[in-house]
């Protein structure tokens, strides 16, 4: 006999999620980090007293799925819950127990009710800076990448550790903004704690545990039903990816038995000497994200949704990096985990996956404004989304992660650069019965009068987004400086008046191109996704004369 009926449960559950969403909204509105406010690179979570995650803000990106419980577990190993003072705040940015790079600071407060531990509140945001070599792949060891904080009490019994704040501020570039974002996290977790206590009072809950049991059981059961509906089998996939100046093969084996599913990345190659290695929690997060899209996209995320899924990867591989391997730009490789799993699962659930996507191009520009002020700006550009069963892949849409674009009218004053063109890249999406989404071309001119450095963290420059079930691959990503192709992962200087051109990868097509009807191809030409010549190249002579 459940402790809550269906009506009560949905009300209580949604209320917890809405508390985390309120916290996330306040962080987005006050943050100094572009990644937080345009890219939702943040998360707010509530745990019960047994450190089980029961509510997570809906505005977040995949990296936060399943990582915070690991972080909390390590925090509590060092500072057991019952030893915490209600006024303590514990922080950590350790990539190996967090989200895979040191920009993300986890801030945790215990929730005490009438003197007894009731749970934990946590918020995590991508800080504007963490020192070291900046947000790039340039480091060869983790020690180059900035300040790595041990699990520490930033606030002890209500008193902020000024020495620690001073240490952080001394080690980062925009000290006041970093401090501002840390304070925003402190205030966010304090508001979440207060609201959870109000919520428990309002509904007369002496403990979160019975509610947590129910939420987790319901979520787990939804995943179980989804898994039971799939045939037992073992599926494999692999992909080659460019890894700085090498090539790595990523391997994935999905084993589905009854109500359990295991994803094993055994056979994946070793780390490289650049900041693109992926610590395991990030790999696991991406795998859990892909499986959530497939199994239960409509229910809120919590630990129950991940209980039946195991993810493993060989320690020291590029998908389970350990120090001193650097990892600041771990998304560069980590984003491939989602298409790997979609590819493996395509034979089981062909209607719930996408062909490979063009993915996101994340870069940092550093230099000076025309008036000499220091400038550092992140910029994101999207490739095309992969095709799906009965649905074309959307153009210029983020796959794997979900960063939003910065409007040109905001980016130009922020950076002092001029965006000369941002246009659909015709003939870039893979052909198919359901075609892949088009990429885009962005041309940025260095109008600052000073040298400009582009720290690029691009992928898909050597290996395109593959099609699925006979669909064709999209075109590859290309970076050019003054018309000359440059490597996708590295540091490039752009002289005053010079230009960077960023051609974004197209998404893969779904199903054989021959099955695409002529009117759809004609519409693609009308929409700027295909040129008339490109249509013939992709779909053959039957497409001649269209457009």
């Amino acid at each position, binding site marked *: 006999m459940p402790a809550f009926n269906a009506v009560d449960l949905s009300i209580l559950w949604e209320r917890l999620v809405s508390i985390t969403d309120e916290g996330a909204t306040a962080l*987005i509105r006050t943050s100094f980090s572009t990644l937080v406010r345009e890219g939702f690179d943040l998360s707010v979570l509530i745990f019960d007293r047994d450190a089980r995650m029961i509510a997570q803000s809906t505005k977040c990106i995949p990296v936060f799925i399943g990582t915070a419980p690991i972080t909390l577990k390590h925090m509590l190993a060092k500072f057991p819950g019952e030893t915490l003072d209600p006024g303590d705040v514990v922080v950590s940015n350790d990539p190996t127990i967090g989200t895979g790079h040191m920009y993300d600071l986890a801030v945790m407060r215990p929730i005490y009710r009438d003197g007894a531990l009731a749970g934990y509140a946590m918020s995590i945001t991508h800080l504007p800076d963490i020192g070291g070599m900046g947000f790039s792949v340039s480091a060869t060891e983790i020690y180059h990448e900035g300040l790595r904080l041990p699990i520490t009490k930033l606030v002890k019994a209500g008193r902020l550790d000024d020495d620690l704040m001073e240490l952080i501020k001394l080690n980062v570039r925009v000290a006041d903004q970093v401090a501002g974002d840390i304070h925003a996290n402190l205030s966010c977790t304090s508001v979440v704690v207060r609201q959870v206590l109000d919520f428990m009072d309002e509904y007369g809950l002496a403990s979160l545990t019975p509610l947590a049991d129910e939420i987790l059981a319901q979520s787990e059961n939804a995943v179980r039903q989804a898994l039971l509906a799939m045939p037992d089998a073992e599926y494999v996939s692999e992909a080659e990816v460019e890894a700085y100046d090498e090539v790595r093969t990523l391997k994935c084996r999905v084993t589905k038995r009854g109500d359990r599913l295991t994803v094993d990345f055994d056979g994946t190659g070793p780390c490289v000497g650049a900041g693109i290695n992926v610590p395991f929690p990030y790999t696991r997060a991406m795998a859990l994200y892909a499986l959530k*899209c497939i199994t239960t996209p409509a229910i809120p995320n919590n630990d129950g949704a991940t209980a039946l899924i195991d993810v493993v990867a060989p320690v020291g591989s590029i998908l389970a990096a350990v120090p001193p391997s650097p990892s600041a730009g771990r998304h560069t490789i980590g984003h491939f985990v989602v298409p790997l799993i979609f590819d493996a699962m395509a034979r089981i659930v062909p209607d719930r996956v996408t062909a490979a996507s063009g993915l996101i191009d994340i870069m940092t520009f550093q230099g000076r404004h025309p008036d000499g002020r220091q400038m550092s700006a992140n910029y994101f550009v999207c490739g095309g989304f992969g095709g799906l069963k009965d649905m074309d892949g959307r153009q210029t849409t983020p796959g794997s992660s979900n*960063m939003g*674009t910065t409007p040109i009218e905001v980016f*130009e004053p922020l950076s002092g650069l*001029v965006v000369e063109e941002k246009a659909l890249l015709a003939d870039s999406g893979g052909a198919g019965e359901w075609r892949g989404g088009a990429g885009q071309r962005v041309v940025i001119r260095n109008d600052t009068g000073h040298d400009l450095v582009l720290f690029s963290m691009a992928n898909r420059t050597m290996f395109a987004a593959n099609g699925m079930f006979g669909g064709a691959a999209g075109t590859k990503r290309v970076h050019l400086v003054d018309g000359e192709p440059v490597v996708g992962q590295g540091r490039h200087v752009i002289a005053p008046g010079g230009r960077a051109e960023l051609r974004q990868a197209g998404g893969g097509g779904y199903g054989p191109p021959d099955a695409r009807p002529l009117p759809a191809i004609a519409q693609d030409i009308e929409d700027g996704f295909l040129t008339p010549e490109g249509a013939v190249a992709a779909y053959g002579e039957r497409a001649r004369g269209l457009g």
Partner: protein
Amino acid sequence: MLRLGVDIGGTFTDFALVDGAAGRSAIHKRLTTPGEPARAVIEGVAAIAAQEGISPADIGEIVHGTTLVTNALIERRGATVGMLVTAGFRDTFDIGQEQRYDLYDLRLKFADPLVPRRRRVEIAERLRHDGSVIRPLDEDEVARAVTGLVADGIEALAICYLHAYADPAHEARSAEIAREVAPQLYISTSSGVFPFAREFERWTTTTANAYAQPMVDAYLAQLEAGLQGLGFAGRLAIIASGGGLMTLATARQFPVRLLESGPAAGVLMAARVGEVEGTPDLIGFDLGGTTAKGALVRGGRPFKTYAFEAAHSYKHKTGSGLKLQIPVIDMAEIGSGGGSIVTVDELGLLRVGPRSASAVPGPVCYGRGGTEPTLTDANLTLGYLDPGFFLGGKMALDAPAAAAAIAARTAPLKLDTVRAAWGIHDIANEDICRAFRMHATERGFDYRRSAMVASGGGGPIHAARIARKLKVPRVIYPAGAGVMSAFGMLVGATSFEIVRSFRASLAAFDAPAFAATLAEMEAEATEYLLKAGLSPADITIERRLDMRYAGQGYDIEVTLPADVTPDEMPGRLPDVFAAAYRATFDTLLDQPLAIVALKVEAVGPRPGMPAGLAGGDEAGAATAALKGRRRAFFPAAGGMVDCPVYDRYLIAAGETIAGPALIEERESTILIDAGDTATVQPSGAVVAAIAA
């Protein structure tokens, strides 16, 4: 003077006639004529005049609001529009904002642009963000482009250049050229419609404006002619999304500002009702057929916002609609209306909405072919509605069918039917609470110290319980709640607001440039009011700034104190900003300040509060107003109870009624919960004190 408010809604067009001198008002309701909305207005004016024994010529002013533009965007029934756009950016609408609005749903849909790609033509020109010219305007290219678009059959043109908010010269010159080439074209420029940074939203707004222009022009022409034909010779005004009145000329120029004009009027009225009842801080709550809306009022003024999403294209989700920039009354809208359909989701949990049975087929109990249970069916099953007195008895409700549909849909939950109906009612309340809580928290509004004003057909049934959940201590049920927007038309002041990007750091503040920009905006905003016939002495100017800590991405709005001169701003603004920031986020930072935008609003005199619909001569003691009793579900009183039912029109001011009780009027039913006490006010409003 006789004044008439007209609210053209999706189903009904409501009329409220107010005689200021005599202190009385009358209402009229008739079906909207969707294909030709002016017709219902014209016929309704004639009808209410006949009903009240006056001539349309006696009416001094008609103010109306319309869903014409909202519906045109939803149904995509606008003009054929062409677009001129800065070279390199023809695809801005297709590329979009490069973010999925739902992280886990791989099959999202986004709103299609209002102008198809082939009617977007690139023009050689380019400004920097400070307005300086990188590439001069190619005037010949503009002429060629317009000629081509006209040949392609466009009726309206949107001119959208990058950074045009910083200097409108290129857009203005292009408009001039276009007028020479094609004098009949409707033209909207992005610097004219809303000169604010963020190209995707500004251009979307500009194309929406162009899209609506020919239709609004034709509608207003028909309306003017029709009313003239009846002998009406007074002033005709239209209410804007931000709650201000516009002349028809301004409405023809900026039709995109007519979005949400009806609901805006409802909020204005809620604010005035709150004023009369002595609660300047309140939540306006309206529950209609398809959605519930909430708006916050602080110090008698509704909150405004400048971002609005119209015409959602996928599962009612935020992110799937057209993203617009207009001054609009800031409303939380959620898909919980009377017609919201009940489902049991994949987790075995009960859900209400956002799918709606709408007016057709409507809830099961309407007996018009609806088969899926809705919120209204639950409210009927719970005894809150009288099957024989819906819309004053004009429409019979089928209670057994409603209960059967609920029982069938909720069978997997193994609850009895009344318990399931209560779940539906309560989940709708909780969904609404969640939206309101979020909305209020984001805006630093403490609803526990406010009141709630309930309106709409369903608002008065749900308000008391929502208020209790939110710890709102008082709920006000104004007289005429069912036609509140029509009354709201008559309480708005003529106004026009201009918003312009103005980026400056407070540390390096250029006082002369600021003063010049401000003066320019004031002159422009004032001009619209002078054209509406107001005298300069009647116009007040309000100035507000969007500010942030330098480096942040979002702003806080601060009101510029009236006495501060531009030279004093760097000294005065930090405190003004700190107060606003702390009120919202509970904290302050040690960071330099930046100004992002200026807002100037010219406002005319505010009309007086229209006389209400207070009880007539026959009103008396509550006991005499008792119509009967019926079984209704009040968990706070132990479950199904024998509940007294009162006739609102027969209760005199000063009378009190303790819950549980139902108070019926023609358009809605007030639910007074157990523990709460209602008192009838001299204004005719019923005010309930909500138990903690």
